[in-house]
């Protein structure tokens, strides 16, 4: 069965103008063009989107779970990196 299987694609959908594409899942397709069409059928049947990106899963380079500690833990105790040490003026609406 494995040699008959189509390659896997990751699907990103933008729900409306102005927002970013968000990862919604993955699917199989014989090629990228068909992947866009399959994504339309699988992930946008209920008006979820206005734009679709597909990316071959094989092209995604991911961080390794083994590196989780060295990658992410050092940020844990550096509270000064967060912009929390000043007062926000009342006039600022959208921050």
């Amino acid at each position, binding site marked *: 069965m494995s040699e008959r299987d189509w390659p896997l694609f990751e699907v990103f959908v933008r729900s409306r103008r102005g927002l970013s594409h968000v990862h919604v899942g993955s699917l*199989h397709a014989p090629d990228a063009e068909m992947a866009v069409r399959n994504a339309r059928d699988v992930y946008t049947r209920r008006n979820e989107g206005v734009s679709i990106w597909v990316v071959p899963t094989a092209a995604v380079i991911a961080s390794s779970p083994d590196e989780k500690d060295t990658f992410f833990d050092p940020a844990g105790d550096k509270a000064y990196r967060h912009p929390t040490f000043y007062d926000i003026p009342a006039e600022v609406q959208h921050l």
Partner: protein
Amino acid sequence: MSAVPLDVPLPPLATYALRLGDDALILAQRMGEWIASAPQIEEDVALGNIALDLLGQARTLLTYAGEVEGAGRSEDDLAYLREERAFLNLHIVEQPGGDFGVTMARLLFFSTYQLGLYDRLQHSSDPTLAGVAGKAVKEVAYHRDHATQWVLRLGDGTQESHRRMQAGLAAMAPFVDEMFTGDGLEQSLSSAGVAVDVPTLREEWDRYVGSVLREATLEPPETTWTARGGRRGIHSEHFGHLLAQLQHLHRSHPGASW
């Protein structure tokens, strides 16, 4: 639930709506047969979506046919309680799906025809027909695109996929002419601005299908015979079996609902 005898002619507009509605209903049934049988689950969903689009068109058209007829028949009465001879669909939609190549050949042939038809019908002087067509024309453009993508890939794919796609075209070739035959009823309705005169759609159909087949490295199929009579209720032997599946549940449990 009233059974109208076959020899009572329907109003021409009801007949016309029934023809278009039956095409959509019966092809929806055939496309639905692929659910859980397509090569991949993604294709299951794609074919199921197409079936549901067609079913939606059928519901509106059958409901309208019943209203125009004025005998109190609902969409369910028309879909589930008519006998074989009272269905007015084309032969191409009732043919068995065969393999995936046959199904894609049928979808390419029929959706190209239906797209041309709806594209004109959205300017019909009849507001209901114009409304159905205006909504459906986008759906059918997608159906044609789906078929086109597959015919290109199978035709210009492996030796085996090419052979089976070519065989699919041959299997559907006898049912092409009937789509463009038309009759007096459609001519008079189209003179009144209500219906579409189907022979005028042939040129555009030949052009589009021809260009897809060329790009897919496929030969235009030839046929020694052509089907006819669907619009008068004359059907192929497959149709009774299809209707049995389509109507069985409703006839076994009359009036059941959920």
